[in-house]
């Protein structure tokens, strides 16, 4: 179950939302100029990304407003939420930093029980390799 932070209402359960598929698919500027192949692309073809995907959601049982979201279609992690009509944010840099700090925090809590002093000292040296490996995962 996804917990989605509506920009207007805050974090709400996925069941309050309606999925709108791929974001940033503009209506053809000059529809009369399209041939059948191009129309097919607009009507039936959408990206089916395995990884970070820009998609539209509607808070149908809340504020009834549409918004865009970046979500990883493999892990289902929500990376960013941003208003309709604004460009797709570049999450590769912040996401790498975010996951780096998140993993360090997880390490400190899991190892914290047994030896808090060791885990505290291990955070500092571990920080460099952790941030070095994070972009590798992010570019996958």
């Amino acid at each position, binding site marked *: *179950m*996804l917990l989605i932070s509506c920009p207007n209402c805050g974090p709400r*359960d*996925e*069941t309050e939302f*309606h*999925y709108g*598929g791929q974001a940033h698919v503009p209506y053809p500027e000059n529809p009369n100029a399209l041939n*059948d*192949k191009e*129309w*097919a*692309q607009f*009507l*039936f*073809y*959408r990206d*089916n*990304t*395995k990884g970070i*995907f820009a*998609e539209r959601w509607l808070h149908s049982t809340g504020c009834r407003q549409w918004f865009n979201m970046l*979500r990883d*279609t*493999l*892990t*289902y992690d929500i990376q960013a939420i941003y208003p309709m009509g604004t460009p797709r944010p570049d999450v590769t840099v912040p996401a790498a930093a975010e996951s780096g700090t998140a993993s360090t925090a997880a390490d400190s809590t899991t190892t914290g029980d047994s030896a808090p002093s060791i885990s505290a000292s291990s955070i500092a040296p571990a920080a460099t390799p952790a941030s070095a490996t994070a972009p590798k995962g992010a570019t996958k």
Partner: protein
Amino acid sequence: MSTEQLPEHPEFLWRNPEPKSSYDAVIVGGGGHGLATAYYLAKNHGMTNIAVLEKGWLAGGNMARNTTIIRSNYLWDESAAIYEHALKLWEILPEELEYDFLFSQRGVMNLAHTLGDVRESMRRVGANQLNGVDAEWLDPQQVKELCPILNINDNIRYPVMGATYQPRAGIAKHDHVAWAFARKCDELGVDIIQNCEVTGFLKDGNRVVGVKTNRGTIHTEKVGLCAAGHSSVLAEMAGFRLPIQSHPLQALVSELHEPVHPTVVMSNHVHVYVSQAHKGELVMGAGVDSYNGYGQRGSFHVIEHQMAAAVELFPIFARAHVLRTWGGIVDTTLDASPIVGTTPVENMFVNCGWGTGGFKGTPAAGLTFAHTIATGTPHTLNKAFALERFETGALIDEHGAAAVAH
């Protein structure tokens, strides 16, 4: 009806060869469709120097995750033709493959809960009969006679107003189906290569000439994609797009019970389909999760919704315990019909888009896709299911018969 004896767990049924440096054809995806395609390539077209590449273990994707329902009661002529051909193949395959995978023709009911459902269902029964597909319309009393545990009272949220019934439909043991095909493929000389993930394609201009894998490069003249939920990922590697959206689809089983459910009951409207496996588990499938997903898991509220429907339709299920839930990745198209045919890349062929109902189509997908790969032109049964239909507009809208809403 008594609990049936399952066959003994088989010994190793196929070799685990190292990949050769070249093959006449390479099938990507070692699920039911990939194995069936390889089988028919070898049997019908004499192509035995071929390989099936599987990134995980054999038949561990949707082949291991589906609810094993086999039927052919689709609305349109093109669909009825290919699914009915599949059903006829299912009827002869246990003998042909010399492997009893317990194809049990216990019938499938598709329930109608609204007047709209009733009209649509009766229309489909008529269309089926014109296409030589066994189909009949049952009133609620007849539904109750065939499946006594169904609640046909009219005081429930979605009362049973009748059902379509296909007596020749049923279920089979999905793992055994895969093993049956794999053993025959192996006997015919096909290399089944597991733990072999495709990472790219070699192309000469617009013609595919090889496959890059985590176990080395394999040269080949022809490539057939049978990767279901991952078809778009492979197509992107090859440089073309598919009109596919991959969604999680969930199912679950209960603990084992005495035989209580004699047939298969599907309800399009309330999104649940139920049968009882040979061993005794109640097998239930849900609707797809709304969002795109490659995670082989979905959201819990979908299961909750499915269980609410199941318990209302089958009150005795209320005390049953869920044993296991899981998800697969289904490759849906906008017209709920598959894509079997050529691609924009020369000598590369695609079989995908079977969405929520690929298991039943396995033999016909294999037969027609093998024909397409071997001859370069579609079989009469898959001609209408080409990629081009999204440009010509000749869609085959099977949302009514596909049973799982998406």
